[in-house]
């Protein structure tokens, strides 16, 4: 059934409902696409049996007219989500062979809605990275190539397996997690849409923790409507996550109007950074024009602490990570390296030295340092104060506007290895995405155009707390005006 993998998620739902094809046919086509795309290294584990069983169940449910929101829809699951009976490693050697006995709340909700899991998607180790190159199981290769080049490009990160798989039409949508931009930046790099909802909108229960106060699950999909459909299925209050928000989840897809009449779109002046690619600057202006065309009023706003966001993030996130990753000690599960005749400390040291990659070690060390007695006030405490100021910046800006429009990332996708030697250059990828993460705000990237090499660039929309609907609707309005239709040309 060639062509089935080219359908959007919404078109798949329509086709299934109209009995143009069965869920089994739809899922089979994707299972085959996944197998054929192994050179991308997007999937760590393929679960065709799971997918086909869900497809058969969906066909039954469709026949009975009881189909859930995502009945028979083939999804990829970022390997940060614990999946019952399916190896879950967070792309780390330290969790090699770990098979959870439990299902994360988000995946459980997706499966309850009828989704078919094609497999577990590669990511940066413990979601720490912006290019998917820190995975212990090898980098993900972007399905995109620059014009006239066969050089391997990164798919962004940390949800690089998710972005590559969706862009390459291996799955209809994929779950992601976003701590500082890990959904939005890879979405921008691969020409797809991705939304990180408000902190607390999706349960973190069963999601392997990187930085607890920032981690938030979301979705990467072909377009805004598909994001809305999947987000609706995965969001919601969970008593098992004390930080999840007990508020109703709107029917997002049904609320997409494409009109921005009466809306004020804020343009934060601090996001106009020196040396911004003129193509990106031009694209941002196009976005502003599209918003105006959709009926929005454009206002300039100020987020004065923007330049402090990145250093703040790189104190808070490693601090929490250094503590969250303490549990990987070789005692109860995962890798254990116990030197002969060694002490407990020797086992810890050997296990963690062998189990963690360089980027994870770097962040554990930074985090340990900033929490140490004598440094806590200068780093962690100060970072928390700045974080509060950043949140305040947004709150003030939202007095003057309803949504913010910015670029998603300062550049398009780069070549594998281009930035691995320079962690600071890598961190700079997150400069536009980190502030919204620190403030816990819903934010989304949509594909808006191509750079000079023919590679996708994204625009970001940031909304008020819990206003995913507003973010999605504005993204929907811009999406229709951008008319982005580019897709990677299959080379794998």
């Amino acid at each position, binding site marked *: 059934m060639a062509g089935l993998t080219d359908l959007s998620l919404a078109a798949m739902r329509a086709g299934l409902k109209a009995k143009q094809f069965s869920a089994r046919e739809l899922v089979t086509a994707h299972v085959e696409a996944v197998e054929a795309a192994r050179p991308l290294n997007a999937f760590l584990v393929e679960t065709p049996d799971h997918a086909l069983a869900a497809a058969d169940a969906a066909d039954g449910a469709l026949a009975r007219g009881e189909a859930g929101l995502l009945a028979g829809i083939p999804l990829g699951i970022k390997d940060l989500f614990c999946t019952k009976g399916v190896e879950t490693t967070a792309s780390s050697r330290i969790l090699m062979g770990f098979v959870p006995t439990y299902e994360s709340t988000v995946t459980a909700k997706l499966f309850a809605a009828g989704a078919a899991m094609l497999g577990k998607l590669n990511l940066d180790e413990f979601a720490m990275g912006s290019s998917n190159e820190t995975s212990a199981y090898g980098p993900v290769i972007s399905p995109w190539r620059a014009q006239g080049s066969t050089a391997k490009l990164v798919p962004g990160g940390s949800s690089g397996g998710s972005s590559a798989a969706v862009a390459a039409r291996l799955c209809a949508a994929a779950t992601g997690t976003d701590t500082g931009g890990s959904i939005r930046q890879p979405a921008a790099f691969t020409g797809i849409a991705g939304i990180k909802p408000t902190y607390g909108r999706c349960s973190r229960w069963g999601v392997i923790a990187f930085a607890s106060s920032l981690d938030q699950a979301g979705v990467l999909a072909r377009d805004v409507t598909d994001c809305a459909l999947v987000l609706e299925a995965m969001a919601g209050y969970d008593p098992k996550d004390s930080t999840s928000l007990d508020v109703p989840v709107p029917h997002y897809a049904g609320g997409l109007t494409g009109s921005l009449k009466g809306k004020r779109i804020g343009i934060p002046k601090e996001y106009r950074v020196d040396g911004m690619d003129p193509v990106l600057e031009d694209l941002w202006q196009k976005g502003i024009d599209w918003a105006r065309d959709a009926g929005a009023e454009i206002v300039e706003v100020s987020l004065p602490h923007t330049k402090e966001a990145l250093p703040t993030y790189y104190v808070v996130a490693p601090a929490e990570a250094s503590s969250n990753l303490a549990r990987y000690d070789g005692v109860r599960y995962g890798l254990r390296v116990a030197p002969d005749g060694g002490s*407990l400390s020797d086992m810890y040291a050997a296990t963690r030295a062998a189990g963690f990659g360089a980027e994870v070690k770097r962040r554990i060390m930074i985090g340990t340092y900033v929490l140490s007695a004598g440094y806590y006030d200068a780093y962690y405490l100060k970072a928390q104060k700045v974080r509060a100021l950043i949140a305040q910046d947004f709150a003030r800006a939202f007095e003057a506007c309803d949504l913010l429009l910015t670029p998603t990332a300062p550049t398009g996708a780069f070549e594998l290895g281009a930035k691995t030697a320079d962690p600071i250059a890598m961190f700079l990828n997150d400069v536009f995405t980190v502030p919204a993460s620190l403030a816990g705000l819903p934010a989304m990237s949509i594909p808006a155009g191509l750079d000079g090499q023919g590679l996708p660039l994204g625009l970001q929309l940031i909304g008020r707390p819990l206003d995913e609907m507003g973010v999605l609707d504005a993204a929907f309005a811009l999406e229709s005006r951008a008319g982005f239709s580019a897709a990677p040309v299959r080379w794998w």
Partner: protein
Amino acid sequence: MADPYVIEGRTGPWELVIGLEVHAQVISQSKLFSGAATVFGGEPNSQVSLVDAAMPGMLPVLNGECVAQAVRTGLALGAKINRWSRFDRKNYFYADLPQGYQISQYQHPVVGEGALEIETEEGARTTVGIERIHLEQDAGKSIHDLSPTSSYVDLNRSGVALMEIVSKPDMRSPAEAGAYVAALRAIVRAIGSCDGNMQEGSMRADVNVSVRKAGAPFGTRCEIKNVNSIRFIQQAIVAEATRQIAILEEGGSIAQETRLFDPDRGETRSLRSKEDAHDYRYFPEPDLLPLELSEDFIEACRASLPELPAARRARYEAELGLSPYLAGVLTADVDQSNWFEALLADSAKRQDKPAKDVAEKAANWMTGELFGALNRLGLEIGESPVSPAQGAELLALVADGTLSGPLAKQVFEIMLETREDPGAIAEARGLKQVSDTGALEAAIVEVMAANADKVADYRGGKDKLFGFFVGQVMKASGGKANPAVVNELLKKALG
């Protein structure tokens, strides 16, 4: 005021300064942040949830029952309840600490300052300040002696809620430290926030000790970790103070450190110095929201408190007219105290008198006869073969003259063995006191006839012979005669 407690050194007397951090295991159905059970003595690792084992992606959810227990304990100590408190992570690596951090309350505890009035066994009263009470998770248990090459870990205790009750450095003697722990134990047991079982480790103390010359500022303290009985706490204080005095008197100085008490050797030894102290890298627990308590919640906690030991003791003295000693003994332990309450209520009902009129006899019987018997049998009050109702029936039988004191003792012994009711025992075994004047008069006539010479002597002025006649009549009745009635009839008969 009594002389302050001192330890005599070579250079003169030294005062002790003592502060205690008591770790009390909270009574709750489930753990502080998970739904796993908390029962003591389960099969190893049988009471462990995914959260307790720190599986990837697991999150803590605060157990409101544990919060209520900490608040109730704070209220019982007259302490300030903090409407806003917060949990922090205390980071360190150990095999029985699955998360690699303990969730505790470092900067913002749920309970603030309070006070506890104590009285030593010698009767000296003083007040010990409470610094704070915070909630935290217990760790698991490492077992090192099952295998020569590996250690085993039991996570049943991992995540169980503890209250850490921190005193101010207000105690000056081992006796005060002992009295403080006893009073604290009585309170948490009375309100049901901790079972106070020190043998099972549900209550244990870190003991901070320093010494100084009278009037001098506080000396450098050492902390003795995890002492698990009042006796050991007192021994550890003396051992540690003696060690510090010896060092200071030789011109040395005390290094602040953590020490362990070895009860077999009666000495403390160094565990780790301040330089080796862990850097716990405390920071706010991002998986939990700050703990905010409503006034309603606090009031509900307050309303759930039973009468506290100190209040009950004061009531016993003021309303029941009990001596301070009896009131103290009867309120020292909640199980005994509740037993007495039941005995008292039933006694008043059976004798149809106000409680204050039956209280002293009931108190004397319970602290004398009953405690003596339980002591002899090695039983706790909860295991008493005699119920409060049976005790009250026994006291009523004495009060209405059915049983004499000696007969009551006989009946009580039988009750201890057979668990039968006293009335039934007296009836079945003919142990009732004889107050029937006809029968006693006949016995008196017989006794007088058999001892005509002594009757003459008595009537001639030998008053002391009266006791002889009483004894003879009692003997003739088989010990069952009512002595008061015998006295009265004899006086009449002898003229």
